[in-house]
């Protein structure tokens, strides 16, 4: 069992951050920022939001580090797997152009 639990106030603060980041996301898109900036910002904010939810709402921050292995392994594998597909389905196009 988890030993410490976040308080309702913690949950609300995290929720505030999530809402704020979402508004930021929609804002930069609607404001029509350059594509490169949008991609960078959105990936960063999406990762930040996912981490906030995992750490606080899913209590990973309060679990033993060994529990992190469970979601950690597939996340790492998934990223490696997708990157391994790049040479075949993405890069040959770049070579041509």
């Amino acid at each position, binding site marked *: 069992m988890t030993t410490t639990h976040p308080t309702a106030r913690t949950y609300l603060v995290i929720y505030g951050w999530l809402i704020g980041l979402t508004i930021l996301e929609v804002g930069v898109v609607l404001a029509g920022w350059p594509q490169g900036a949008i991609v960078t910002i959105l990936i960063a904010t999406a990762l930040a939001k996912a981490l906030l939810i995992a750490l606080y709402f899913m209590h990973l921050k309060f679990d033993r580090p060994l529990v992190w292995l469970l979601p950690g392994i*597939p996340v790492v*594998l998934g990223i490696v*797997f997708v990157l*391994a*597909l790049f*040479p*075949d*389905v993405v890069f*040959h196009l770049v070579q041509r152009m």
Partner: protein
Amino acid sequence: MSEQRTSFIRKYIFSTSHKVIAIQYLITGLVFLAMGGVMALLIRWQLAYPWQPVPLIGKLLFPGSGGAVTPEAYPVLFTMHGGIMVFFALTPILLGAMGNYTIPLEVGARDMAFPRLNMLSYWFLFLGSVLLIASFFVPEGAAGFGWTVYAPLSSSTAVLPGWGQDLFILGLALDAVSILMGGLNYITTIMQLRAPGLTLRRLPLTLWGLFYSAVLNTLWLPIVVAALFMVLCDRRLGTAFFVAGPLAPHEGGQVLLYQHLFWGFGHPEVYILIFPVWGLVGDLLSVFSRKPAFGYKATVLSMLVITILSGIVWGHHMFTSGMNPLVGKAFMFLTITVSVPTAIFFLNWLGTLWRGAIRLTVPMLFTLGVVFVFAIGGLTGLFNALQTFDVYIHDTYFVVGHFHYTLAASVLFGAFAFIYFWFPKIFGRQMNARLGRLHFWLSFVFLNAVFSVMMFLGLHGHMRRIADATAYEFLKPVQHWNVFIGWAALGLGLSQLLFFINFLYSLFKGAPAPANPWEAGSLAWTVSSPPPEHNYETPPRVWCGPHEYGVPSLTNGDWLSQTDPQAAKLARS
């Protein structure tokens, strides 16, 4: 959850007991094994005597063509043979039956961690098999794109319009969900429900094999499920994820993407099936050599390394697919590294036999059979890893012979070793040893005759999945080998009748089995045969590893049970 379970249906059909579910898996697997075997014989008949009416059952199966296999029926035969054998025969026997029966007993638990999920797992398999069988009866027949479901042959209704194709894919997806549910249970039970004292170092190797296998399933099976759903969308919803070129409705997607997704799972699948067998071989060699498993820790670590490597070598299935050749080279070098851990545990098997006191029982014969055929399967795998050579033998019978050595021969012998070894525990009766030995030797001879000749055909360039080799000039000189394989395959098939006879006879008439007929040390053999409904009244206390045989200081007997308190003093681990 238990006491009110009295009715027949609750006890034997919708049972949550791991032992009943294991038997359900076993019977389902054996039925499909027989079905897949008959399909293999039909395939071999067609290749030996192209377009000749099949004797005896031909008129029944192919009434439209006077009993001969038709060009339309042939792809269905090899597709269903592959799909059934891999997903509906070997997986249910090795993971379903072996996993369900052994895990709770060997960890000293009353049942699986999630019994109702376990029941659901079987019924998903059942539903999947219903869809699979139903696919034979829809217009235009069952699936014909090969068990690998390669797009765009599978994903375009322009080339294969029948609903049988969709039913096959759905059946596979349901089976995948079933396997995932089972795997979830195996992992959780092995990690969380071990009896006091049963540290990870004291698990039987079979459980390690099942554990790694479940881990691989949990990680990679979902990828292929996603790919299968995308194929279904391509077929019925007008998408084009895996369709490109002239067949695509718009720009289209990426044909190679499917192969990557499929082999991302497909290569681990080889290990998913072989890991439980490797574990079982490690345990049985130890039991029947009356000697501790040699290099237990190294074996377990080797399997872990292979688990990791298996996820990153899938590209060696795609050397001719038009993928980037540099990537191919990387995949080749990754692939050959697998031979280091493989060699280590292979040497550990030999080390277990070394200076043992070997008892050649029927399960031991099959175990040694696995060692022999896996040596061939493993070493011929190396030929396939060599990019330049693989380009020549890719999609030929060399590959077919190779993967039948690893998947069919090794895994089948492993499945038989499991059944002969555990039959007394499961059903409380002994199997007939004389029939068992005859079954082994006939299978051994015929199996090698079939699969080694396949590899020679492959070297001659004989393509796989062709219905008639006589259509090619360069294959005419080797056609007589197809005839040879046909008859050897018939011999192999008929030898299996000995097994089915033995199984059914022993089930009802076999000699009653004692609790521990093999003098085995692991937990399962401390309870009666068959085990009581909840296995253990109180959690057993474990004092040593599962392989304490040949203990020098013992005066009565040569082995220690894991629950034997003397072990704390006498055993080494």
